[in-house]
């Protein structure tokens, strides 16, 4: 059994930042990730980030992963790759992990930061299991990490930032994007991303949804339909599109099964992506010693995930008595950063969700 001060589950932007922050305070940190390489979803993000200099604005996602990995190497952190945390055993406070394919390893930590990220949502429509229908994130992984294009002509379902960015990257890879549709009446993503694909001639059709997919064994087309303001299909507005690939980009759900297992109090908050853990300002859940950060805490983006990771990591270490003398400053700075990140119009949804979570938790 591995013993450590702070265990971090998940080596994406939140987990890497948590590991760095906890190690800086002086704690011994063990970072666990199920993949062969650290970085999480940053590895496939070839676009430059917004935000501020402190969180690497104007730097591409995979470069941010490299910066964080370099920082990690300078610190006292044990990294376990190819290792998946599969269970939490409450009575002993032990995490069970699958290492490789046939080894079981136990991990006991005084504090844990759960930074497991999120899972792509799927949609319900006839023939939604045809080969050729992907999550947009999966397509981004295929193209940007493995250099494989998914098809020739794509329908993107979802005009949020993921849908818009992946559409642009499909165009860059020489794939035709037939259209971007979204059931909402407005484009969810940033205007700057929407403008980039529109300039390439890709129509963005709001108030449209998928009625059905069709094809003989593989995806050959989809029927889309306009919806009214209650998201009900309007008969007679159907359109057929010849496509061999459909990307579903309709949002993410926090990946929180380990928190459920641990008995953390959970609430259903749509603005935060679904069932999310109740947490305090230090990102500690209702189970003492278990912290959460990043998309597992609420669906937001990598910049805020990094700041949340820092807060969780700092506090996990500090509550054990570790402090390099900068705890108070660092914590205050990070909390302020989060507030700033969420202060603009793009932060309204998250702020409302967090408010609702706080109210319901009382």
């Amino acid at each position, binding site marked *: 059994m591995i013993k450590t001060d702070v265990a971090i589950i998940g080596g994406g932007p939140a987990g890497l930042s948590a590991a760095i922050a906890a190690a800086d305070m002086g704690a011994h940190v063990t970072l666990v990730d199920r993949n062969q390489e650290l970085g999480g979803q940053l590895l496939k993000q070839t676009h430059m980030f917004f935000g501020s200099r402190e969180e690497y604005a104007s730097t591409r996602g995979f470069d941010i992963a490299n910066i964080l990995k370099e920082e990690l190497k300078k610190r006292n952190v044990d990294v376990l790759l190819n290792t*998946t945390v599969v269970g939490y055993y409450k009575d002993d406070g032990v995490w069970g992990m699958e290492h490789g394919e046939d080894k079981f390893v136990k991990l006991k930590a005084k504090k844990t930061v759960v930074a497991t990220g999120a899972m792509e949502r799927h949609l319900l*429509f006839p023939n939604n299991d045809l080969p050729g229908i992907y999550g947009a994130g999966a397509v981004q992984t295929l193209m940007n990490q493995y250099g494989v294009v998914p098809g020739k002509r794509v329908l993107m379902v979802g005009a949020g930032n993921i849908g818009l960015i992946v559409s642009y990257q499909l165009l860059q890879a020489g794939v035709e994007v037939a259209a971007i549709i979204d059931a909402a009446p407005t484009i969810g993503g940033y205007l700057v991303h929407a403008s980039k694909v529109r300039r390439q001639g890709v129509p963005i059709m709001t108030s449209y949804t998928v009625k059905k997919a069709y094809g003989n064994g593989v995806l050959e087309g989809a029927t889309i339909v306009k919806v009214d303001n209650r998201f009900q299909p309007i008969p007679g507005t159907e359109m057929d599109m010849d496509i061999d690939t459909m990307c579903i980009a309709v949002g993410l759900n926090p990946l929180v099964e380990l928190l*459920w297992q641990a008995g953390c109090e959970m609430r259903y908050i749509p603005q935060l992506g679904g069932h999310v853990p109740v947490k305090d300002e230090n990102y500690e859940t209702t189970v003492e010693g278990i912290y959460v950060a990043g998309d597992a805490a609420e669906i937001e983006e990598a910049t805020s995930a990094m700041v949340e990771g820092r807060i969780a990591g700092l506090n996990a270490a500090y509550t054990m008595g570790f402090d390099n003398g900068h705890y108070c400053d660092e914590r205050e700075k990070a909390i302020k950063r989060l507030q700033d990140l969420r202060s603009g119009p793009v932060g309204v949804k998250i702020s409302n969700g967090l408010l609702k979570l706080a109210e319901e938790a009382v």
Partner: protein
Amino acid sequence: MEEKTVVCRCEDITVEEIEELIDLGYDEIEEIKRITRCSMGPCQGRTCRNLLIQVVASKTGKKIDELHIPTYRPPAKNIKMTALAGGDEDEK
């Protein structure tokens, strides 16, 4: 060709099958899970659990936060018996 709207890809469970069960009175996620194995396949519900919740909520007219969510138990993903039976180094 029969057109299916699949909720659970691992266990091949459709919306129609779930709605039929609700019509029969099995309107708890837990019951549907036990009868159909929806969310009990290799992915352990990572994709379908939220779709199942969505179908049950819209068919029963209940709000999602009123629904009872089944207990999550280890392991969170499929793991070989060899690994579990082998145990950790200190158990050998």
